């Protein structure tokens, strides 16, 4: 193709940017309640009785209509003043708080001020401006003039880069998603594939990174880290199958390494899922689908609570879209929140999940394309695995005037077993000679207990402006891991060779300081320093030749210090220009470290420059140029068929994201990410300036939803909806200047809701595109040849064909 064609997406984006720039924009996803009318309170005696003001602190619950639903005294002054203050506050009206533009209930803290004598000519402000109160509630820079005291709006921290996004439930649920991993696709620049069975962690591509199963992407769910340090299948393995798509409240994506909260594996960036279930009451949902798929979902959410209080259960089974693709899983999640009288809140999250799955594994592209095998065939029907995860988190947090603290310990129990055969009979037949070829299939097991915590304290202080704040956070986790990799006999599954048999202990302790200062109005500078110390201990029970030996223990430690900074300029109302810088890291595989070795981290440095803008609820978006540099990288190696260390690399690119709404009935979220990933150093295998293999250059994603009231039946509103998810992936370089096949997929949904009853039809891969889910290049010997070809060939996993799910939900 020509270079000119490759620029077409830029042109599209250029137009998009022009459309966005001139409008009033407000790029944050949570808007705090804004006071509309605040009539002055009446003095208890009907007149001012003091020569000074009397101030009564109150906490006001503002409902979705902007009206005061509830008022509570924060501190008592005197019974008469308390009563008068409560009555006054009840008359206040507000613009309601909004999340992603949608009105939500919020609590705000206010001061009812009884003006003393002599009365000032200008009425005293009833509500005083609040300093940046908490990580989750900091008002954006241009709100300096807004006079609102706010607490407990569980919103989002100010962005660290222009391209940071929060995708709420309405975007996530616009198009159908089978799993939480699939739902990650709504994050700009993310492309998700599942190459080895429904139950193995997805392979995630993000911004020019092949994060494989999580090595370059820090993933958190409900405040618990998901990445598994030193997982035997791959560094940072992150499996989110335990989350049902229904209980994802929102997905925050922080590309780059700009936030001090980002730690290990935040190389391409971080993704945090918050959990919640919005449907009040109890819901039962049954799904029947193609290929013998059955699913039952149960969920509840008490009417009077925030959506954070819920429980959900899922059981799923399928025969799969071809041989050896059956799977079964079950998951239960419960989360509850409670606010204590003193303002302290607690959140408890617990979940349990188990899955078992078969995998068709990989096939040679040439065998499929020549018709030698059916495209859904499998070479080795013994592939598959199982996975469990159980976890619990307790979060205590409190917001006070000008300060917020939280402490959240967690514990996770994980097990993973994978049996796979990526190369057929190659390992045993290298350069011929063996009389009987043993299969290369191997089983990896990884069992671990992770205990850890996050804790932070944010405090307002006046450095350059009253809105300045400092936050100190700590993070710790300790992983107790038992892992093994064994070749198994294909006759009786007996282990024939032990490649790994090790106990690993991994400890990560980190602390950060995060400052937010406002040197001049409209300008915010956020950033800080994060220090991570990591310690590893490995006891191997086999030596380099696979022979059993008494366990030898080796330990290694390392540290990383990262500096982060973001400059956020509210250029015009609703338009923010952001410049971001951040240093991050990826820890090495523990088993790869020698005794006493200073753990060599991959150092990551990111820059981003961009704009965020919005027009109220109608239109919001961002456009950013980014650059990321790595001191070394991991790339799939055809020689060893695993990710190996390669020289320094860089990513350059553009990311655009746009969200448009028309009332409550139409929503469209679109993003495009164009990246060029190249080596910046040469090695024997890679040349400076050459493209990194496997990472897609252009990722496009659109989610759209349209709904409307169709009429009334049985005394209830009948609502119809349609949704579509479009995904495009192009320019995926493969080794040796090959190019992977582009991918265009359409998922669609249509539904009818009659209050308690909901019918939905989900179609995945609507156009039945024949696509490759995974594409690799390496040598293999599936033909069981005594003298196999050793030159790397194209190996693929087959993407799912058109799949239809029909769902009935009943909500009471």
């Amino acid at each position, binding site marked *: 193709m020509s270079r000119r064609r490759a620029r077409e997406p830029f042109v599209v984006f250029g137009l998009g940017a022009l459309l966005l720039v001139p409008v009033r924009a407000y790029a944050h996803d949570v808007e705090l309640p804004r006071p509309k009318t605040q009539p002055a309170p009446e003095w208890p005696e009907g007149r001012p009785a003091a020569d000074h003001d009397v101030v009564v602190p109150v906490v006001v619950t503002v409902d979705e209509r902007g009206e005061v639903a509830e008022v509570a005294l924060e501190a008592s002054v005197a019974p008469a003043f308390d009563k008068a203050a409560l009555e006054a506050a009840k008359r206040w009206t507000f613009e309601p708080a909004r999340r992603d533009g949608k009105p939500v209930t919020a609590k705000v803290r206010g001061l009812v001020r009884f003006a003393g004598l002599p009365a000032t000519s200008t009425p005293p402000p009833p509500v005083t401006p609040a300093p940046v109160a908490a990580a989750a509630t900091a008002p954006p820079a241009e709100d300096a003039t807004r006079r609102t005291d706010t607490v407990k709006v569980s919103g989002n921290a100010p962005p660290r880069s222009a391209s940071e996004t929060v995708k709420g439930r309405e975007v996530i649920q616009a198009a159908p998603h089978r799993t939480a991993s699939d739902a990650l696709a709504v994050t700009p620049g993310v492309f998700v594939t599942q190459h080895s069975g429904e139950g193995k962690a997805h392979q995630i591509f993000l911004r020019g990174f092949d994060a494989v199963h999580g090595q370059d992407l820090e993933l958190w769910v409900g405040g618990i880290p998901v990445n598994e340090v030193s997982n035997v299948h791959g560094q940072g393995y992150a499996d989110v199958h335990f989350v049902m798509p229904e209980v994802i409240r929102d997905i925050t994506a922080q590309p780059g390494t700009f936030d001090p909260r980002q730690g290990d594996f935040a190389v391409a960036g971080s993704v945090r899922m918050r959990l919640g279930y919005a449907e009040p009451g109890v819901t039962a949902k049954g799904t029947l689908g193609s290929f013998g798929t059955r699913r039952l979902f149960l969920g509840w959410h008490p009417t009077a609570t925030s959506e954070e209080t819920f429980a959900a259960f899922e059981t799923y089974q399928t025969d799969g879209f071809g041989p050896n693709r059956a799977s079964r899983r079950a998951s239960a999640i419960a989360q509850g929140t409670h606010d204590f009288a003193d303002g302290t809140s607690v959140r408890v999250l617990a979940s349990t999940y188990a899955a078992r799955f078969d995998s068709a594994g990989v096939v040679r592209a040439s065998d499929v394309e020549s018709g030698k095998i059916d495209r859904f065939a499998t070479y080795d029907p013994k592939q598959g695995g199982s996975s469990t995860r159980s976890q619990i988190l307790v979060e205590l947090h409190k917001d006070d005037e000008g300060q917020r603290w939280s402490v959240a310990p967690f514990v996770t129990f994980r097990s993973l077993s994978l049996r796979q055969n990526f190369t057929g009979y190659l390992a045993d037949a290298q350069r011929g000679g063996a009389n009987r070829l043993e299969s290369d299939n191997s089983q990896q097991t990884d069992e671990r207990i992770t205990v850890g915590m996050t804790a932070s304290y944010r405090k307002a202080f006046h*450095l350059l402006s009253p809105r300045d704040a400092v936050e100190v956070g700590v993070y710790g986790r300790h992983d107790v891991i038992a892992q093994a990799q064994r070749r198994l006999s294909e006759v009786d599954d007996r282990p024939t060779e032990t490649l790994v048999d090790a106990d690993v202990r991994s400890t990560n302790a980190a602390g950060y*300081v995060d400052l937010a200062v406002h040197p001049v109005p409209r300008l915010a500078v956020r950033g800080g*320093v994060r*220090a991570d110390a990591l310690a590893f201990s*490995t*006891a*191997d029970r086999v*030596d*380099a030749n696979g022979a059993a*030996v008494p*366990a*030898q*223990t*080796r330990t290694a430690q390392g*540290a*990383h*210090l990262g500096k982060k900074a973001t400059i956020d300029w509210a250029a015009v109302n609703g338009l923010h220009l952001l410049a971001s810088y951040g240093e991050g890291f990826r820890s090495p595989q523990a*088993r*790869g*470290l*020698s*005794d*006493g*070795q*200073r753990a*060599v981290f991959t150092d990551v440095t990111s820059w981003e420059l961009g704009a965020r803008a919005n027009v109220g609820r109608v239109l919001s978006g961002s456009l950013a140029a980014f650059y990321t540099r790595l001191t070394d990288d991991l790339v799939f190696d055809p020689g060893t068929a695993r990710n190996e260390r390669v020289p320094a690399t860089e990513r350059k690119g553009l990311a655009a994201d746009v969200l448009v709404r028309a009332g409550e009935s139409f929503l469209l979220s679109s993003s495009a990410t164009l990246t060029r990933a190249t080596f910046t150093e040469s090695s024997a295998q890679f040349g400076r300036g050459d493209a990194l293999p496997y990472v897609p250059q252009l990722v496009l994603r659109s989610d759209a939803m349209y709904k409307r009231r169709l009429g009334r039946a049985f005394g209830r509103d009948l609502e119809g909806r349609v949704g579509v998810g479009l995904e495009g992936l192009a320019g995926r370089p493969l080794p040796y200047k090959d190019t992977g096949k582009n991918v265009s997929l359409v998922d669609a949904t249509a539904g009818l809701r009659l209050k308690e009853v909901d019918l939905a039809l989900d179609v995945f891969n609507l156009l039945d595109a024949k696509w490759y889910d995974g594409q690799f290049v390496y040598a293999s010997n599936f033909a069981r040849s005594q003298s196999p070809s050793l030159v790397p060939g194209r190996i693929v996993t087959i993407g799912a064909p058109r799949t239809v799910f029909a769902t009935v939900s009943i909500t009471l």
Partner: protein
Amino acid sequence: MKRFGIVLALVLGCAADEGEGSVSFSTYGEPFIEQEIPASEFEDGWTVKYGKFLVVLSDVSIAETEGAAPVAKMPAPKLFDMHLPGPKPVFTAGRLPAKAYTHVSYVIAPAPAAVEPAAGVSDADKQRMVSNGYSLYVEATATKGAETKRFAWGFQTATLFDRCEGPLSGKTTPGVVVTNGGTDQVELTVHGDHLFYDDLQSPDAKVRFDNIAAADANGDGEITLDELAAVKLAAIPAANGPYGTGSAPGIYDLRAFVEGLSRTVGHFRGEGECFAVPR
């Protein structure tokens, strides 16, 4: 706030300095050279006892990566008798910045006149090595039942043992790892059984002595290199071992074959391996 900044600056400063450590090289011939190679090691039931195993070690070199300038190098060649008991100190490189150094190599080459004899090595031994230009000299007795053979062989091969890697606490580690205040103790291990392997290239090579014993043409119990030279590899029955030579050129007789094997005695941290490059 200012104090906070000072703390941060200290942290930043500390992070850059990882300290210094050292690497200490020793050499060891293992029980095979110090005591005997037992019959269980041989395919054909022989036992070999060395009486002398002289090796000239030189140019032990440490570099951070391949192609980088060495950060430490052994100053002068040294002559060791591996038959003397225990590990023998070779060279210590001190005050190296703490990190992994993945390129380590050493040389076994003919003794220069200035070669330094290690403890226990006689002047006569040194003279023997220097005057003959030997890099390796062995004296040994081989027995099988009532049969006894003696041999005293000197080799003039010069070999660079390059890119050494070996097991370190259970992990195959290229080169050495320097830790803050610590010492990586590296053994340049010499394998006495390698002189009797029956294939130069195959990983399935076996240890044999029958063919060498049979080379004692004059039956005096002493097997000389000249007698080995008279044995064509082609004349060795297939049942007595393949004696494959891979791509090593010009190896047709047992003497050339054993000389080729003399390039494989150098190892790293016990069973660790280096690339053998002729010099």
